[in-house]
């Protein structure tokens, strides 16, 4: 197997996906045994794959912001009586709370951080409220803060288009509340095309990862529009 074949047939990515045919895989691995450059290319593709997957779920982006007191900002909003009261009901109110400098994006500058923007959108549940619209910048990150209820060990969030037949576009289980009992869900803006969505929140009381049964807590509908 020569390097032209590997390049033209995208064998590196197909190898990582596990979709090479048996003969191709044998020949590819034979080359891997002696070709240091190929090992490096695979290593790079693995990093890219892992990075994109992490970015897609991107919980890391809101895990522990440094240099920015997200907790204080959210606390300020939740201190407003009507929002605090609203947290125990069902339906959606959304506020565009502000723009956060993404603290984990490094540019090698003096502080090491760049000006990548993240919209923070508290997604509170309020009975009887109309569905609000989030303005999503496709070049920025959007963080949905979901207020959680009940005493669960962890939560699962599923986001899908508001269509019973739609496939989930985002699913994550094992979530635990971060700030003020809110789950922080970070998504690249371009994952949220303009349209109507439903965020389903489920909870489990089981702490054993192999034995989790989730109970439905609530569905929160919301709508997105492209930011101007």
């Amino acid at each position, binding site marked *: 197997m020569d390097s032209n074949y590997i390049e033209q047939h995208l064998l590196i990515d197909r190898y990582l996906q596990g979709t090479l045919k048996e003969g191709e895989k044998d020949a590819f691995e034979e080359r891997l045994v002696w070709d240091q450059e190929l090992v490096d290319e695979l290593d*790079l593709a693995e990093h890219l794959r892992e990075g*994109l997957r992490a970015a897609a779920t991107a919980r890391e982006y809101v895990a522990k912001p440094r240099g920015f007191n997200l907790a204080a900002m959210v606390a300020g909003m939740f201190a407003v009586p009507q929002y605090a009261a609203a947290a125990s009901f069902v339906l959606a109110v959304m506020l565009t709370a502000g723009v956060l400098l993404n603290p984990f994006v490094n540019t090698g500058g003096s502080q090491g951080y760049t000006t990548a923007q993240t919209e923070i959108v508290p997604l509170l549940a309020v009975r009887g409220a109309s569905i609000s619209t989030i303005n999503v910048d496709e070049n920025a990150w959007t963080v949905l803060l979901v207020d959680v209820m009940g005493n669960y060990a962890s939560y699962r969030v599923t986001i899908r288009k508001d269509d019973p037949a739609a496939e989930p576009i985002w699913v994550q289980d094992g979530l635990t509340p971060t700030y003020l009992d809110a789950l922080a869900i970070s998504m690249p803006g371009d994952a949220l095309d303009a349209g109507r969505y439903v965020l389903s929140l489920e909870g489990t009381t089981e702490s054993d990862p192999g034995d989790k049964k989730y109970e439905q807590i609530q569905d929160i509908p919301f709508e997105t529009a492209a930011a101007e």
Partner: protein
Amino acid sequence: MAKATLIPLHKQDSALEEERRTAARIVRGIHDGDSAAETALVERYSTGLRYLLMRRIGDEERARDLLQDTFCIAIAKLRETEIENPERLAGYLRGIAIRVAMNDGRRRNREPYLMEVEAVAQVKDREPRQFEHVAREQTLSAVHKLLKSMPVKRDREILTRLYVRDQDKQEICDALGLDSLHYNRVLFRAKRRFRKLMEKSVHTADFAPNLG
């Protein structure tokens, strides 16, 4: 009359030619009792075999032990017998490594091969890879910069569909209305750009995120 010249469509793979010559030389050397050839074998094939073993068993320490076993078996055989295609030594070694890994899975307690092979001492405890020390945050940062540097949404979508959703090329091209050439070009450029960003991360020694 003008002379016709054949222009090869593909660049010649000189590395492959070099490998075939080197492999044949190593095989002949080991068979002739040359210990330097045994050392050359270990040095040349350690990185790739270790990577393969790591992918199969996912444990660095065990991969190193199995790598040593692989070389012990290979050297013992190459000393005593002549293999059919010496220029395809890599394939021969890969076959041994796979069998060693499979047998290891069946054995409850691994017993080391008792054979004395001096060259096997050359096997390092760890094989540093180029991007091994790049922190997760730096990888994320490089990915973020890469995505920002891609102005066309459809091009970014290719990466997401390929690496996050594990879709195959045809599926992605069909869904996005792309031709094969465009798909390959976007991937090639994205990887080249990502490599540069990652190489910069490797050299950014002062970036040490404190997440505690």
